């Protein structure tokens, strides 16, 4: 119980101590009885004020982004092989990789409010890999459908592929994820990284296909989480 409580406390809250997480073996977990449990509530807010409004300044939108660079995506088709050798697209050895390409989620934001998750322990019984009955302690998360997980404006405004300005992330490189260029004409015109033509796109960051999630995700039931050790049929 002690260890379980500690875990719950960590999740719940607010300690500045340097708590180390220790692995618990099955025996230790099985000693945990009573299952008094704990309630977890958690509010995550990303680039939002308390009323789920976007707070990034209009001239600093490039700092409200998330970007992914998938391994070996360079503008010239170069790549690092498994041994770290840089090669061009036909396999020849070259000195440096090209300009890195990024998948940039612009205007990323959201408020997620997990109102309540009950945390306790439960036993599971199954026949192990060797045909032996196993009693397995598991963490059990319980959800109340009347206390849904609230999603408020979760998502991003636009998505685009941006490329570094200097190969091999060399000196003077403007990373793709900070790109804020100008260009285009007419409906496609953009300046300072934002569309300028009047209408729906005006003021939005350059890219395509934003995503926005709004709602109460009403979850019911329990989720048991346990280690799939070598004695389990599936592992």
């Amino acid at each position, binding site marked *: 119980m002690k260890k379980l409580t500690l875990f719950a406390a960590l999740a719940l809250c607010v300690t500045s101590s340097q708590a180390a997480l220790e692995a618990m073996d099955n025996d230790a977990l099985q000693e945990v009885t009573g299952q008094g449990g704990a309630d977890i509530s958690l509010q995550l807010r990303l680039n939002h004020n308390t009323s789920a409004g976007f707070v990034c300044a209009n001239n600093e939108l490039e*700092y409200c982004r998330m970007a992914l660079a998938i391994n070996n995506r360079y503008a010239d088709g170069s790549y690092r092989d498994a041994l770290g050798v840089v090669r061009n*697209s036909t396999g020849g050895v070259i000195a440096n990789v090209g300009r890195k390409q990024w998948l940039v989620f612009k205007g990323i934001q959201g408020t997620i409010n997990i109102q309540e998750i009950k945390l306790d322990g439960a036993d599971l019984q199954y026949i192990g890999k060797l*045909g032996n009955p196993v009693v397995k302690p598991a963490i059990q998360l319980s959800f109340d459908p009347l206390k849904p997980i609230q999603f408020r404006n979760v998502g991003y405004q636009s998505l685009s592929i941006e490329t570094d300005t200097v190969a091999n992330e060399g000196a003077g490189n403007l990373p793709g994820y900070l790109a804020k260029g100008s260009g285009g004409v007419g409906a496609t015109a953009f300046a300072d990284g934002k569309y300028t033509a009047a209408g729906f796109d005006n003021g939005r960051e350059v890219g395509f*296909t934003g995503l926005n999630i709004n709602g109460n995700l009403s979850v019911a*039931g329990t989720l048991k989480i*346990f280690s799939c050790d070598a004695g389990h049929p599936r592992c």
Partner: protein
Amino acid sequence: MSQIQPLFQHQWTRRLLVVAMSAAMSSQVLALEAISDEDMSAATGEGIAFLPENASIRMNGADNNNGGAGTFDTGYIRIIPVGPLTPAAAATGAGKGDIFLYGLAVSQSDKAYGAGRASTDWNNRFSRPIDSWGMPANPWVLKVETQNNVPDFAAPTPTATSNGSVSYLGLEAPLYRTGNIAALSNTEKSAYNLKLAFWADAFIRNPSVVENMAATGSQFDLGGAGRANRLRLQAIWDGFSINGSDIKIFQTLGGAQTGVQGMSSSYNNTLGIAGTLRFNSGDGQNLRAVVTTGSATRNTGALTSHDATFGCGNASGDFESVACRFRFRSRIVTDTVTDVNWAVPTLGSVLRFSTQETSNTGLLATPAINGGTAPTFNANEGLYIYNLNVNLVLGSLYQPLVVGVAPDGKNISLELARIPNKESIYKQMYTNYDNSNPATNGGYFGSTCNIYQCGTPRTLGGVSYQGNTATHSSITIGSTEYNAATNTLTAHSGEGAIGVSFGQLQSRFQGGSFTAQRLQLEYQQRQFRDREGVYTDRYRLRATGLFGDEVVDPFGHPSGSCNYGGGFGGTTCNRYFNRAGFHTDWVYLNSTAGGAKVFGDTGGSFTTAALFGTPMPGGVGASGNTNTPGAPFVQGLFDCPAGTTANNDCNGVNGGTGSGTYGVGVDVIANTAANRSWTADATRANTWFVASNNQQSEENLVFRAALPAFANIPTATIPAAPTANVNPSALNNLGSAVIDGLLIQHLKLTTRGL
């Protein structure tokens, strides 16, 4: 592995700390460290297991209605159409597509596994919680594993064997049990009885109007104010499972070179994804509409011979006559059925798309902008898909799905790597349908993933589960037929086939009487055969008179003239020469195996020796004084002048005085009676062949050309039971469909215009 890099720079402290604080982490900075492949490969076989019980999720509206749950089914995921239209699209007057996906919900069907579904199921987006999505011994598993000896892309020759180890992060749904799912416990069955639902509003948005999320305004008025620029769609799948699905994420191996055998360097050492996506509704082998009739009668008689018209009797040598080449017998079978009833079977799984709402019918309203509740849809309208089984194999550790960037640097491509010309890869993927055992089938390991199997099954903890090693995909809708020997599925094509319908599938009753006339036609057939050969003919020169008298050879034989050598009776000179001969006889049809007619019955024909003897060496035109090898000596063919009948005159034994003109020429050897007779032996007499159902086949055309009375009665296979010309099926039933054994050789999807 792929890098995931957060990019907030100094904003991290200002914005993201909110997250960090809420999550109650301490001020300690936790750095994620890369795990080396060696470390990952050490962690084999273990993972984290998840088991949802009594679980459901439902995306409700962002409010506190319904006791806090929110207005049902109005929470949404919106795909925001950012970015200008392409000039081509703008020129056609197109708008932007703005999609709101509402009320995504996963639950368990209200009906028991396999029980019949009704409108309350296919028009209800949320049912009851899933008792247990997996079992303690068969949960969801997130694990890291390593597979060794995975072939890489390098293939300088097809027999190259270069390979590497791949560590992957895998998320596996509960495995699919083998055998009869219906026999499992209710708890375990609940994972095979899921319900997935959502509804959506898709708008055509006017790109020149600013977005307004508080009122409809004119933002959707493209092509005219108030125009119905909204598609409202509801999708509900009641009764399916995702068991057996898995997704793997890994770093791909290397060795591909751009431009070499169609490969691309973008396959090398990058983020790779492979998955088996399985959505199975249930076994379609016994899913059949039941067809019944009030009464069913058959009127038939004995087979009637048509020898008066065909066959030309048992002695004909008229090889040119079509009638002489066939014999027929036939009968007309008249089936009559009454009161045909086609009953919808138990529908254990229905996927339905519908668009007709019956409430909240504002043409341009949507809850995200205008508030309100989710719409109600017509209970029985729309597109119905029954018993859909989708088993998609998307890639593998050696044929990964990779994400790339188009050459313009702006567009995204998703590519399922081309299968290299490398034996160690393609033999893992290709299927030998005739023989699934790699030890004896040439080493091919591929197989198809379907509801019955998905590669080699496994027994874990004493329980048998389907595998996850199949390489080919299979999609079936409705009634199917399964060939277990080849593991192939085909759509059932009988009158009870169901699969897709527009509107609720209706039973159908057709009162009254329906008939069908079919001709049962059987035939025998023969054709003529030309036989060619070389025979040796003989003639004689006979010299008499005074000693030395000469008889000139009228045929210019190399042996020259015949001179009288004295003695009684004159001198006889034999002259031999080879000639080309031919003979025509009948051969009879004796097999139609494989659909091809085989004329192999030559009973009663002469042997070659009987026809042509044993000719002299040298072929046609050769001459000589003896017929060597000659034994037994064959005189050759006869040549009798008019009025002469004695054999010895004809064959040159007697010869004619002085001239020797007798004995040269041809003879006609009549075929034997056995060759000319349709009934020479029991096999020939009693073997009848069934005429093809193709009305344009040779036998059907010959038969009807001579007997036009049968012109309108089609030759047909007589069904086992009386069957009339009536389509019993419901008129909105589109039947079943199967795509089986689908292997993706190379797939690349690239966006355009971004």
